[in-house]
């Protein structure tokens, strides 16, 4: 409790970010209860209905309620943001830890793999991956996760290398702990701080990459109410007749990504001792 208060006082922007994120997660969890309509139900008379009345944020071309779609879209965005980041981190941690801890041939090979993954811009990589995997929620998550791997692996590896030589690790080894146990019990927890910082920032960027993929026609397919797709597809065509189709999903994405960035920044400041005053 005290720690929370300290965090709020010390990092007010971070606290705002945390609130945004909490709202976002709650919306995603209770989407079914919050949304007044089925996000995929079409309704001819409501086509392009203006905001207000039954349709709080208006309706799209096919008469689907924009508010309900945004609320359900939070689920998709959360899934993409969290799952892609988690998957990317998991693979990255595994590679980085093994590579830093084992060294030798494995390290050499892993480094080359990471070099390869890193020599293409993230979006280019995600684009090729998304195209080869085909459009679906799972595939989009994979396509966004893989390009995240090298960053994570790099950080974990360099931390592991440094930690391996630390006295407490050597001590653990001396008392006869197995290597795997040492790695998981002593080395991994000590690399968590930079990982958390990185991961928080990646959630937002994963959501943005999904929206860019959707814009390029390779993201999550209909009928999933993905924010990126809502923004980029037919919505953009009706931008002047029905601006609410573009403005609200755009605000939703920007707000959530903004939230993750605020939180990520504050966490970095809090966890990185070099930046404290």
């Amino acid at each position, binding site marked *: 409790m005290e720690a929370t208060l300290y965090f709020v006082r010390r990092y007010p*922007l971070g606290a705002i970010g945390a609130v945004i994120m909490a709202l976002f997660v709650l919306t995603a969890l209770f989407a079914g209860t919050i949304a007044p309509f089925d996000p995929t139900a079409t309704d001819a008379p409501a086509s392009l209905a203006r905001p207000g009345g039954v349709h709080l944020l208006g309706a799209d071309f096919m008469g689907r309620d924009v508010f309900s779609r945004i609320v359900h879209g939070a689920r998709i965005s959360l899934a993409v943001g969290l799952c892609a980041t988690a998957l990317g981190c998991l693979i990255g941690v595994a590679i980085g830890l093994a590579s830093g801890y084992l060294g030798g041939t494995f390290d050499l090979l892993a480094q*080359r*793999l990471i*070099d*390869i993954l*890193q*020599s*293409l*811009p*993230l*979006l*280019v990589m995600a*684009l*090729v*991956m998304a*195209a*080869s*995997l*085909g459009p679906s929620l799972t595939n989009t998550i994979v396509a966004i996760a893989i390009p995240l791997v090298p960053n994570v692996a790099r950080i974990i590896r360099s931390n592991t290398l440094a930690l391996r030589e630390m006295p407490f690790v050597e001590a653990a080894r001396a008392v006869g702990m197995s290597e795997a146990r040492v790695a998981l019990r002593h080395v991994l927890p000590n690399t968590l701080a930079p990982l958390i910082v990185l991961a928080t920032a990646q959630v*937002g*960027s994963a959501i*943005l990459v999904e*929206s*860019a993929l959707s*814009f*390029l*026609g390779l993201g999550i397919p209909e009928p999933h109410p993905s924010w*990126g797709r809502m*923004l*980029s597809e037919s919505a*953009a065509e009706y*931008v*002047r007749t029905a601006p609410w189709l*573009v403005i609200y999903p*755009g605000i939703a*994405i*920007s*707000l959530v*990504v*903004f939230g993750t*960035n*605020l939180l990520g*920044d504050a966490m*970095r400041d809090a966890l990185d001792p*070099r*930046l404290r*005053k």
Partner: protein
Amino acid sequence: MSGYVIRRFFLMLVTLFGISVVIFVMLRLVPGNITDIIFDSAGFVNPKQKQRIERELGLDQPIVVQYGRWIGGLARGDLGYAYVSEKPAIQEIAPRIPVSAKLAGLALVFSTLFGVTLGVLSAVRQDTTFDYVLRVVSLSGLSLPSFWLGLLILMACVQWFGWIPIYRSTPESFWKELGLLAIPAAAVGFRSSALVMRLTRSSMLEVLRQDYVRTARAKGAPERSVNYRHALANALLPVVTIVGIEAAFLIGGLIVTETVFNIPGVARFLVEAIRWRDYPIVQNLVMFIALIVVLVNFIVDMLYAVLDPRIKFGS
């Protein structure tokens, strides 16, 4: 030193080889090939005619043979023929490179100019209102989907000026072209300037806490001189790195921007070529992009080695 350079150079070649394999295999995992596309515009598929085209293009060969042909050609400087236009691939790729290069260059200038200046100011005035405002603005730069931003800019221009800043097929002069590219470049640069600013700020904060800065301050050097002479010079090293890497990675941002502003550059062309399963174009373009990234990394590493005495060579 020279041992380090040679080793790095060798590793670079290994990486490039790896990319060529990865992209080659991934492309062939993409469902459908050029013959499907060719028939798509005819609204049917004739299996016999399809087979004939596949044979003509060498797509019936084993994948290893196809790879060998590509790399063999590449070694001779022959990029092959584009599937869709049936022209030499180099003729399709080459004219599009300068367009993207100008856009990326402009965006880079924009992002460095704003990013470094604002980053330094923000660090020097850490935790003031000014700092908060700058940080919020820069964070919002990282939070807006870039195509959304681009679309809003286009709409605003048409609404207020009755004019649309999209690319003309033949700009009359270099300066006119830069003028047309300025708005999209700003849209791309907004995002990377936020990155640069954040990095400059944290790097600057770190340096400001270093002993020699404290010493300078303790010795009574004026605040301004401490900030800008001692600290900035040292804080810039990581910034140079990130700017270098950003330069290569801007290509990612270009994809969306070139699409929104209809700029005929390589980035949009890549998306196009993936959609058309135009293997020669995609493979060679990806290799080209990778080559730039790898080279930039190499140069940055070398620069770092020269600038930062702490890096040991040969390790």
